[in-house]
């Protein structure tokens, strides 16, 4: 019991603590093409589990835009909040989704800027790479290094 409760207590008591836990890139078909963890705090899952979660998120994102109670277009879910972390989603015009897992205290403006920066890095280091096949997993050292500079 004591060993179990140690980690959550640590996290709950530090609500002002800011962290970026991870980044996913989901292609327009719902496949996970990039996944990287930056900080501890969330469960360590296998590659397969991440693939399933990304697919689920892709589906949920499509449904949430249809549930709007008011007229006009609604976007899909942009921020999904749990108690100790939140999931921020940026949907690009081409259908690629950038998903950033952060602590709840992280301000929305910071996250939006960061997601935009990640998107431009992606455009620069991944899409401009002639050896990269679109919609396929991203294996690019240049992208990894640039992200390391952005997020650290």
């Amino acid at each position, binding site marked *: 019991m004591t060993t179990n409760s140690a980690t959550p207590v640590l996290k709950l008591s530090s609500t002002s603590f800011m962290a970026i836990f991870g980044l996913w890139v989901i292609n327009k078909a719902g496949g996970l093409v990039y996944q990287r963890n930056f900080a501890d705090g*969330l469960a360590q*899952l296998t590659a397969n589990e991440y693939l399933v979660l990304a697919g689920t998120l892709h589906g*949920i994102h499509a*449904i*949430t835009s249809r549930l709007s*109670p008011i007229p006009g277009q*609604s*976007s*899909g879910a942009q921020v999904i909040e749990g*108690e100790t972390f939140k999931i921020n989603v940026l949907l690009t015009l081409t259908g690629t989704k950038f998903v950033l897992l952060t602590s709840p205290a992280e301000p929305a403006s910071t996250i939006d800027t960061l997601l935009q920066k990640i998107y431009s890095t992606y455009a620069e280091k991944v899409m401009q790479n002639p050896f990269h096949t679109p919609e396929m997993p991203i294996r690019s050292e240049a992208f990894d290094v640039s992200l390391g500079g952005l997020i650290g």
Partner: protein
Amino acid sequence: MTIYSLYIYDRHCTCVYYQDWHRTRRPKPAVEGGILPAVSQAVVAPPPESNNSTLAPYSSPRNTLTSASGVVVAVSEINAQSTASPLLQAPPSPIGVTSTGLAFDEEVKLVYGVVLSLRNMIKKLSGRDEQFVNYRTSAYKLHLFETLSGYKFVMLSDPGTESLRFVLRQIYVGPFLEYVVRNPLITMDSKEYGIDNEYFRASVDRMIRGSSFFP
């Protein structure tokens, strides 16, 4: 800040209650048998007239819970009810109300599906028993409060609102316990009837309209 709608689900994944406020984009009426009776009168298709005569009055105390009434404290004459409880009537549809293109029973399943998937996703990602709290799109925000008994309270509000979990908890602790759990005329977990009744609806309505975030 606006509140749009409230859904209550029991632990069997079925919607047992629905209420809405400033909702300007509405679902189509549920198909026959799509949702339980006594969930909400605003979203069921009006029953055909011939049904009224076939319902034998007082044949069973359950008659007060048919889809035609949706009322627990009620008389079994349809006409008498329509004058007796204006609150339970379907709101007249004002001009400018659009349709989601979805039937209400479909919508209810989609909402539940989203809530359940996100709940599982949050649990999986956090690796502990963490609750899903809310999500936000450009048009609305969905809040979830889950009780230990498996009842899920889901509320849709405008995207600018803070977390409304405490309001959902208040509905649970206040009107829900008082007029549903402690109401001997309501069988909980019945899988056959919703929990709609006049007191609960009025009480939730009063609570929401009286709150600071209601326009």
